[in-house]
């Protein structure tokens, strides 16, 4: 019997049932997709890490190395399971040219340090997309995916390494995944050669850098090891990174993607549930006389509820299954970046189990929700349903007398505004959905704007200038510094430039243990950064420290800290704490010159008189200064560093805008159809009084327009209030060294384009639905 009723209902109420199915499907599909994305991101990284085995501790070092001392220290350290020192031949981008199918180019514009390496035996392996150890033959070369993406290289392209008196040609055999250097956020990348080719070049070309790698029973021991290692005075002329930082830097793009998708999913699930409730209520409203009849012939509440519950359960099961299938199918699109960065990976069992669990959870949630909504049937009496035609609506609120007081407002506007003003509750769905759509679209759009904006670099520990020149550590560092200085002093196109040099000093951490501190020292050092607290150092005895160093050292603004170097000690006051992701996030800034110390690195931030000349000038200087110095327009630096995140975000934002737009249109159509069904008698009365169809359409357009504008307005305000908080919460959870970001708003997009787009779509959908009014006949409605 119930089945027959349900079957007939599906035939009769196709539109409402389809809308319900869509909403349930949206909820289930998005929840499942978010879970798949989240699990796959972490599973892919984990699998790559399991196969490639990046080190738990990595100390990069340039210059002389006493290998025996290093080996002895590490082997005697308790908890060490494995260690190795990998030799990397650092070459300049100018030395590498690529002959592709279409053009020939060199990598001189690349800001990453490029190192040539051979394959390791068992750990820190460079692997292919199937996570297999890559074997390279003589004359072949393995290029990191990072460079492939930047330059669009292809298998079979020729790579020519050119040094002073030597030229070697290689064919790209494989694109390799480098578990520890696969993010543009890391400053180096590795190119794989065969053992013989590597040995042939080793000592002949470039400059050697050593990767001192250690493995422990537990990767968390890395930070204790780092302190012990530094205390022992072992080689440390370079950056030290621990496993946790390697992991986070690799995953920032995909973590951002998962975060955005999760946010959108949660908002969409909220919308879907609101709509499920609204649709069920409207369906019940339409069937109020059937419900009354069933009650009148003696059916109990539970009998009637079960008829509807069966229907909604069937819909929910179908929706969850379709949602699951769609999520599986579309997950390929969303996980493409994960595959490119971390290699191919079949769906992990955890992703399957968890997504199934989420599907079941959504079903249970829908079931519970329907049950709750259907309880209202209990309160409807036979007389209410059949005689008074009273539905589930609690007609709350008092009618305000006052229309007659209006002197000027046109009657259609007057009626519409009064309705929205006094009966806002009736329109809350449209308001909420528009608000959520604005939030859903604006937060990712602002996030993308922020990542894309040149100002974002200031969150990363760099200042915002036209050109960035970096002179890295090495034998020629002072010569190269001199060359740069000469160029800058003689170039009249320069408006201003600031130089800073990096030095290494010792201090103590929060547990009073010794630790190294890398300080960028210079006249402008620390200026133009975003400070979480305090400000840039001003006096010579002031220092600003990065957020991660602040955690490590335990000093806050106003505290003093003692820096030791060359057997001297000097007291500094912490002037500010800033955010930084460069150099592993552990940096400091000071105006003091530390003249007794050798420089680890020189940086120049240059501002030109003419902004349009940036590209050309950078190329020119690069040519003059020669190898060993990176000269890059700041824009390139930003693009190379954040390009991946922005590209991925762009795809997602576009998708979100489409989803958001479809959502508001769908809800508007659905809501309005149900609203019109409810307002039939009011519409008939207005027609009988002499209002034209156009008058009635105008009233609805004004009502929806007002509600939509209110929703957009509230959405924009909430984006301002909540957007940054949400983003900052996620950033601080991710532990990337950036804790506080001010979202950068593009006023044209936020205040004009997106609100206009939404408003136009809503009004267009309203207009289309309103055509139905033409079919309304006064008498048939009044006689119903």
């Amino acid at each position, binding site marked *: 019997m119930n089945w027959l009723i349900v079957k007939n209902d599906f035939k009769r109420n196709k539109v409402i049932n389809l809308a319900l199915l869509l909403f349930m499907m949206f909820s289930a599909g998005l929840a499942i997709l978010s879970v798949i994305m989240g699990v796959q991101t972490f599973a892919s990284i984990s699998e790559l890490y399991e196969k490639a085995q990046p080190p738990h501790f990595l100390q990069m070092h340039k210059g002389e190395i006493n290998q025996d001392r290093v080996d002895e220290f590490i082997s005697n350290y308790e908890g060490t399971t494995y260690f190795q020192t990998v030799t990397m031949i650092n070459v300049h981008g100018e030395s590498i040219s690529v002959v592709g199918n279409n053009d020939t180019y060199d990598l001189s514009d690349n800001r990453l340090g490029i190192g040539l390496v051979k394959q390791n035996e068992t750990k820190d392996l460079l692997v292919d997309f199937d996570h297999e150890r890559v074997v390279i033959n003589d004359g072949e070369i393995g290029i990191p995916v990072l460079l492939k993406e930047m330059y669009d290289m292809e298998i079979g392209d020729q790579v020519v390494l050119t040094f002073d008196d030597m030229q070697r040609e290689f064919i790209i055999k494989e694109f390799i995944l480098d578990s520890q250097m696969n993010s543009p956020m890391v400053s180096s990348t590795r190119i794989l050669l065969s053992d013989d080719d590597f040995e042939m070049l080793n000592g002949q070309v470039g400059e050697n850098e050593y990767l001192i790698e250690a493995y422990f029973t537990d990767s968390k021991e890395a930070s204790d090891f780092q302190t012990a290692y530094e205390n022992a005075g072992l080689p440390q002329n370079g950056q030290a990174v621990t496993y946790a930082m390697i992991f986070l830097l690799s995953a920032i793009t995909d973590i951002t993607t998962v975060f955005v998708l999760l946010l959108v999913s949660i908002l969409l699930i909220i919308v879907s549930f609101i709509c499920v409730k609204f649709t069920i209520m409207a369906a019940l409203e339409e069937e109020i006389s059937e419900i009354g009849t069933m009650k009148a012939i003696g059916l109990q509440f539970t009998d009637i509820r079960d008829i509807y519950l069966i229907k909604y359960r069937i819909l929910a099961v179908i929706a969850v299954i379709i949602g699951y299938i769609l999520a599986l199918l579309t997950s390929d699109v969303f996980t493409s970046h994960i595959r490119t960065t971390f290699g191919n990976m079949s769906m992990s069992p955890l992703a399957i189990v968890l997504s199934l669990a989420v599907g079941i959870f959504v079903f249970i949630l829908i079931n519970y929700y329907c049950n709750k909504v259907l309880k209202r049937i209990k309160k409807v009496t036979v007389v209410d349903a059949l005689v008074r035609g009273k539905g589930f609506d609690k007609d709350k609120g008092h*009618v305000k007398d006052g229309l*007659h007081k209006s002197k000027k407002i046109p009657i259609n506007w007057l009626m519409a505004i*009064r309705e929205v003003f006094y009966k806002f509750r009736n329109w809350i769905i449209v308001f909420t959905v528009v608000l959520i759509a604005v939030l859903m679209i604006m937060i990712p759009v602002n996030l993308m704007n922020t990542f894309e904006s040149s100002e974002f670099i200031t969150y990363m520990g760099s200042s915002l200038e036209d050109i960035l020149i970096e002179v890295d550590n090495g034998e020629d560092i002072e010569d190269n510094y001199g060359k740069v200085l000469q160029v800058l002093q003689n170039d009249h196109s320069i408006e201003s430039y600031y130089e800073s040099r990096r030095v290494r000093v010792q201090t103590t951490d929060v547990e009073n243990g010794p630790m190294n501190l890398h300080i960028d020292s210079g006249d402008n050092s620390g200026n133009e950064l975003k400070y979480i607290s305090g400000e840039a150092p001003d006096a010579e005895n002031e220092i600003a420290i990065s957020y991660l160093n602040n955690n490590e050292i335990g000093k806050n603004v106003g505290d003093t800290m003692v820096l030791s170097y060359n057997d001297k000690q000097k007291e500094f006051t912490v002037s500010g704490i800033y955010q930084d992701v460069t150099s592993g996030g552990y940096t400091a800034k000071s105006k003091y010159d530390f003249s007794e110390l050798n420089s680890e690195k020189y940086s120049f931030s240059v501002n030109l008189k003419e902004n349009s000349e940036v590209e050309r000038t950078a190329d020119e200087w690069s040519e003059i200064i020669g190898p060993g110095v990176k000269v890059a327009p700041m824009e390139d630096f930003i693009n190379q560093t954040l390009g991946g995140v922005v590209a991925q975000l762009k795809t997602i934002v576009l998708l979100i805008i489409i989803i958001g737009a479809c959502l508001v249109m769908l809800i508007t159509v659905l809501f309005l159809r149900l609203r019109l069904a409810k307002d039939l008698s009011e519409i008939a*009365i*207005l027609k*009988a*009084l*002499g209002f*034209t169809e156009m008058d009635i359409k105008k009233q609805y357009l004004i009502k929806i327009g007002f509600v939509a504008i209110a929703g957009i307005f509230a959405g924009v305000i909430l984006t301002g209030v909540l957007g940054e908080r949400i983003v900052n919460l996620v950033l601080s959870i991710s532990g990337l060294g950036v804790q506080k970001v001010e979202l950068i708003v593009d006023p044209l997009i936020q205040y004009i384009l997106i609100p206009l787009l939404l408003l136009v779509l809503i009004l267009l959908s309203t207009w289309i639905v309103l055509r139905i009014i033409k079919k309304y006949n*006064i008498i048939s409605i009044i006689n119903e």
Partner: protein
Amino acid sequence: METILKVENLEKSYEDTQVLNDINFEVVEGEFIAIMGQSGSGKSTLLYSISGMDRPTSGNVLICGKDIAKLDDVKMSAVRLEQVGFVFQHSYLLKNLSIRDNIVLPGFKLGKLSREQVNKNADALMIKTGIDSIAGNDIKKVSGGQLQRAAICRALINQPDILFGDEPTGALNSSTSRGVLDIINDINLDGTTVIIVTHDVKVAARADRVIFLMDGNIHDKLTLGKYDGDEEKTSYREKTLYEWLEKKGF
């Protein structure tokens, strides 16, 4: 007296069901017409078709010489707004408006008079119908009789040529009904043409003429003359009408 309404060869059908067949009659200015008939005889359908609330399937309906049968939505709306007032069996006031706001609404929509003047006219109508004390009330908080009086005020706010009523007292008790009827009679005596559908002899007895419908055709007509409120005459009119109807098996 001039003809205010002329119905020619009017037919109305819904899908396969023919409800009205070849209806012809005329109404002159200031007349009070009652349309009677058995349930299903088509009396309400006739009223809707001649008042512009519904479109006839064929035939002509001329109000003040203008055929409203084939007007488009805008022109038909103008007829409903300006030339016709309609009172349904239930008041059908807009529930989001107060009594007074409901009454002034068509006046504001028409916009021929200033809103101040519309408000004054509404006040006068409410005083006349005895609902001025509840002008600002929520429609959910007044009685059925008061609602129906408000509906009459609303129908009259634009001073229509003809006031139509579909069982305007059908949902009221007898004393309230009498009060509403008195108002309609007064309006008619003031010069407004009134055409109502009723099955109540007491109501129809107040009309100048009674048109009796049977199976969608005008079966017969009875002229009673102008009602003047005299009790003796009223009893006589009711008796005459009663006997007339009895012969038709009503």
